[in-house]
């Protein structure tokens, strides 16, 4: 039977309860149990192979690039854990059936439980490091769902969040560790990794690997100082606790220790850290357990303490310590699961978990009480029970280790103290709950639970006894096969028997038991002593820590980002300064080898005008109308400069755009304050900005100079050569625009079109402030359309249109072209608006810009697509010469169609922009929509 099914069946099984969740709890429970039971059978069927060291395994490719594959294998360790996970899992399913109330969402509960189960199975069976981590994190996630099952309770939410955060953090550390292992070994295949222990131990990364992997293990198995999350996970339903904190979740941590024991252990570092952490956890857990009044609280801390015990054993440098650890993993799983279930029963049937109120329950539920007492004694390590055996082994190993060098004698003593504490809290569990007087005002009178709710407990307790009495027979072989996994180079001999004769370990046990009894008997003093210390609620501490983090983050954030554009722009410019400045600073000399042209007066005058104009614009920027005049001077000179430097097309374009821009600015100024104060100019700010601005100017200027003086070889000669022959035009620039690089122009008119749409949105339903007077308090002229202007412009219109047509047609061969022509037409039409007013224009057919732009863009596009007919790419131009009588020889070029598109788009866009804005100054403004702020 394929190993893949073991994790896969429960995974599919996670869907079952979602389907059967609506039916009776019996149906739901049984249907849920079905697939895991099947998986368990598969596992059992695989046992012989594992025992015979023929490890079953499967392997499928998944993400080769990352070395991530779907591969599982089952060695002794995996087998043991599979049995625990599935076996106890099934019992928990049965138990939960009676624990959950009909109001609970049973389907969701079982689903998450089974999901968790399959995640655990994935962890213990993984044969690929990354896949192992995959399932590892999956356990964190699914346990989050389980712990937060009663999500309306704040405790559940916080507890779950804490568990997720802590184990999640550990998971990240583990990921790092595993990836490092992969780096060192060169593969993520676990079996290969397990075979290369020396490579790992010798590598420089070894310490990092150990620490990261251990972080993962310790956070998961609640080792000190990461133990604080576990008690708060108790806000989960008890079946969950019984599962997570006995056999699974927390055991995943120690599983990891066992898994990497062969390759990572056997070094000072490992033994040092693991043993110390384990010891600390053992004692801290045991001591705190003693003072918990909550039944589950006590069990939670005892769990921590026992996990510490197991960890400690993995940290002892003796041959059999690891075996003992594994043995205790089994025992603890068994008795702790039964204890949690018992606690759940008590809670369920008496309505309370507070040991100060729960007393003398024995007479109410004698049967359950007996079971619980047996389990508790096993927890205490009483002979004839499984707990005793593994504790004996611990004592034995504690005596034979040299982990701490000359201080190694400390360990046995501390271990005995831990044992005594264990006895003490076990005693308390037994005595306080079942005897010690009468129950104190419980919500309901306690009674035995339903028959089948007890069955799981019975089975587990029976196991405690069987293992305790016939250890070799029950678990001997299993331990041996696990030993093979842990110690590839041969398992040392070990004997599991109750009686090893009178020896020191036995003595230690006696001391532990006696000490424990004494402790419990004298507990009042202990409690009094403990009560001097303030109770710290880890949950609150944790939440506060997070809160603190959040608040600090908000402070830092508001400090970095104060929401001021001036800061944003400043940083942007500064970044650009670095980008330009650093290379320039490393440039020996700006001037290149090119011979520089003579200075002529015109240039000087032009440059002078530009400089003066720019500075003036800046100086009078608070008197806006004036600054407009200044900047328009600059614009004019720039266009003249273009003409001067033999770029007539540029000059024309710049000029016409200049006009449009200035009209735009004037219109804008109508809606914006015309004069502003210098309030915002604080001297330090001005200095700062001046420095930045000057540097920017200096850098750009230098770059410009360097550019101008360095020789270049360009692709331009091609355009000169092919403009006429290939493009059919003598105006190279225009041919570039409509042919060589027509695609740019295509994009350019698209921008115009989009801008028109956007501006329409901007102006839709705008709530305006319009000045009643100009800035000097003079009222605006009431006469809208001066007659003179009207007459002139009206007569000008045909002329303007004629000119634009001429400019358009000659464009391909002489300066001009669609764009300039379009602008001229547009401006001429705008002039009509200005002269006659919007109403007059509307009566003569309001131009709908959507039509203009749309048609223009379509024509441009079609002229490009047209070339597909001739098996040529987009925008391939075609031209030829014809001659008609009368007209003479003339040229037709597809580029002209494209240019027509440009022409129309430009008209549409310019008109829509200027006219729509202009309309706002009149009563024809679009009405404001009811939506606040207007819909755009």
């Amino acid at each position, binding site marked *: 039977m394929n190993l893949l099914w073991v994790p896969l069946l429960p995974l599919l099984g996670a869907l079952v309860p979602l389907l059967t969740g609506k039916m009776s709890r019996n149906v739901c429970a049984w249907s849920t149990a079905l697939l895991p039971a099947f998986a368990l059978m598969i596992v059992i069927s695989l046992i012989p192979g594992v025992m015979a060291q023929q490890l079953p395994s499967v392997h499928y490719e998944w993400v080769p690039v990352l070395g991530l594959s779907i591969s599982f294998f089952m060695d002794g360790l995996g087998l043991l854990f599979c049995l625990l996970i599935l076996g106890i899992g099934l019992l928990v399913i049965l138990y939960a059936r009676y624990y959950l109330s009909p109001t609970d969402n049973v389907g969701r509960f079982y689903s998450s439980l089974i999901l968790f189960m399959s995640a655990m199975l994935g962890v213990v069976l993984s044969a690929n490091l990354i896949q192992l981590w995959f399932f590892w994190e999956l356990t964190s996630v699914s346990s989050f769902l389980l712990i937060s099952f009663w999500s309306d309770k704040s405790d559940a939410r916080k507890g779950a969040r804490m568990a997720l955060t802590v184990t999640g953090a550990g998971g990240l550390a583990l990921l790092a560790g595993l990836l490092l292992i992969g780096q060192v070994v060169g593969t993520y295949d676990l079996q290969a990794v397990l075979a290369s222990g020396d490579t790992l131990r010798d590598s420089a990364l070894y310490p990092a690997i150990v620490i990261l992997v251990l972080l993962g293990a310790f956070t998961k198995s609640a080792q000190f100082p990461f133990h604080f999350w576990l008690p708060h996970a108790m806000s989960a339903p008890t079946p969950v606790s019984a599962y997570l904190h006995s056999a699974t979740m927390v055991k995943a941590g120690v599983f990891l220790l066992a898994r990497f024991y062969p390759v990572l252990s056997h070094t000072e570092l490992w033994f040092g850290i693991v043993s110390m952490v384990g010891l600390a956890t053992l004692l801290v857990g045991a001591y705190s357990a003693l003072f918990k009044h909550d039944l589950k609280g006590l069990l939670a801390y005892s769990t921590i303490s026992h996990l510490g015990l197991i960890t400690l054993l993995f940290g002892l440098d003796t041959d059999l310590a690891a075996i003992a650890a594994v043995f205790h993993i089994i025992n603890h799983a068994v008795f702790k699961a039964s204890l949690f279930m018992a606690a759940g029963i008590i809670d369920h049937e008496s309505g309370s978990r507070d040991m100060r109120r729960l007393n003398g329950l024995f007479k109410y539920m004698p049967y359950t009480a007996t079971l619980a007492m047996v389990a508790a004694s096993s927890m205490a390590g009483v002979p004839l029970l499984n707990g005793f055996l593994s504790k004996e082994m611990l004592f034995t190993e504690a005596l034979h280790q040299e982990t701490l060098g000359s201080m190694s004698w400390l360990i046995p003593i501390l271990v005995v103290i831990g044992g005594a504490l264990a006895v003490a809290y076990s005693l308390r569990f037994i005595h306080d709950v079942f005897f010690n007087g009468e129950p104190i005002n419980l919500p309901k009178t306690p009674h035995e639970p339903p028959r089948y709710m007890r069955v799981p407990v019975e089975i587990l307790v029976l196991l405690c006894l069987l293992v305790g009495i016939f250890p070799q027979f029950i678990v001997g072989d299993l331990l041996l096969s696990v030993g093979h996994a842990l110690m590839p180079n041969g398992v040392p001999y070990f004997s599991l028997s109750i009686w090893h004769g009178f020896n020191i370990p036995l003595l230690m046990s006696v001391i532990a038991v006696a000490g424990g009894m004494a402790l419990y008997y004298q507990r009042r003093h202990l409690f009094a002593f403990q009560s001097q210390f303030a109770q710290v609620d880890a949950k609150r501490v944790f939440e506060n820590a997070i809160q603190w983090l959040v608040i600090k983050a908000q402070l830092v954030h508001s400090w970095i980002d104060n929401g001021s554009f001036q800061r944003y722009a400043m940083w942007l410019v500064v970044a650009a300064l670095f980008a330009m400045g650093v290379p320039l600073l490393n440039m020996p000399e700006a001037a290149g080898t090119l011979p520089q042209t003579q200075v002529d007066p015109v*240039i000087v005058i032009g440059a002078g005008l530009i400089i003066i104009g720019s500075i003036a614009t800046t100086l009078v920027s608070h008197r806006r109308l004036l600054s407009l005049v200044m900047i328009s001077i600059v614009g004019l000179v720039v266009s003249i400069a273009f003409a001067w430097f033999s770029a007539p097309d540029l000059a024309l374009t710049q000029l016409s755009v200049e006009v449009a821009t200035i009209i735009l600015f004037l219109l804008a100024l109508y809606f914006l304050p015309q004069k502003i104060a210098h309030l915002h100019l604080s001297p330090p700010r001005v200095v700062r900005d001046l420095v930045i601005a000057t540097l920017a100017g200096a850098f750009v200027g230098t770059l410009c100079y360097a550019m101008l003086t360095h020789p270049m070889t*360009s692709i331009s000669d091609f355009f000169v050569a092919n403009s006429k022959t290939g493009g059919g035009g003598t105006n190279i620039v225009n041919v570039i625009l409509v042919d060589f690089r027509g695609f740019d122009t295509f994009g350019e008119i698209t921008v115009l079109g989009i801008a028109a749409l956007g501006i329409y949105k901007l102006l839709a339903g705008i709530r305006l*402030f319009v000045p009643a007077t100009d800035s000097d308090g003079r009222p605006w002229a009431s006469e809208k359309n001066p007659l003179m202007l009207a007459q002139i412009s009206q007569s000008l219109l045909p002329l303007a249109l004629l000119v634009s047509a001429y400019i358009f047609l000659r464009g391909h061969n002489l300066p001009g072209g669609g764009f300039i022509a379009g602008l001229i037409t547009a401006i001429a039409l705008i002039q009509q608006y200005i002269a006659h007013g919007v109403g007059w224009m509307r009566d003569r057919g309001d131009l709908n810009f959507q039509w203009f732009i749309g048609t223009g863009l379509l024509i441009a596009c079609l002229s490009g697509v047209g070339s597909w007919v001739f098996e040529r790419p987009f925008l391939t131009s075609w031209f030829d010469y014809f001659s008609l009588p009368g007209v003479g020889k003339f040229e037709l070029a597809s580029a002209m169609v494209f240019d027509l598109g440009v022409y129309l788009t430009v008209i549409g866009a310019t008109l829509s922009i200027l006219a729509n804005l202009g309309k706002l100054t009149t009563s024809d403004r679009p009405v404001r929509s009811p939506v606040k702020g207007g819909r755009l």
Partner: protein
Amino acid sequence: MELIYAIAVGVMVTCSVFLLLRGHTFTIVLGLTLLSYAVNLFLFASGGLRLNSAAILNDGGTYADPLPQALVLTAIVIGFAMTAFALILAIRARADLGNDQVDGKAIPGDVLGDKTVSADKRANS
């Protein structure tokens, strides 16, 4: 001459950057316009400066590098669209936020001699 040209560009950039770092939308757009002039000159310069040489074929002589000219032309047009959008956005912002500060936070006494009335009121009068 190249030097003078470069200096002019540099000064334009300086002034425009200073304007960009001001707090009023109008001023910033003004700066952007100035900056785009400078950038166009800069881009134009990437082809080198040619006095009285031909842009049109067949009138002989040397040719100015036509490619930067075409690029600048496109840049001018796009710049126009952008400036228009920015300006009108500035108006919109003034309308929505009640002031023409780029951060939308009014500064008292910032605006001089400007009595604005609701557009609708004025239309009715």
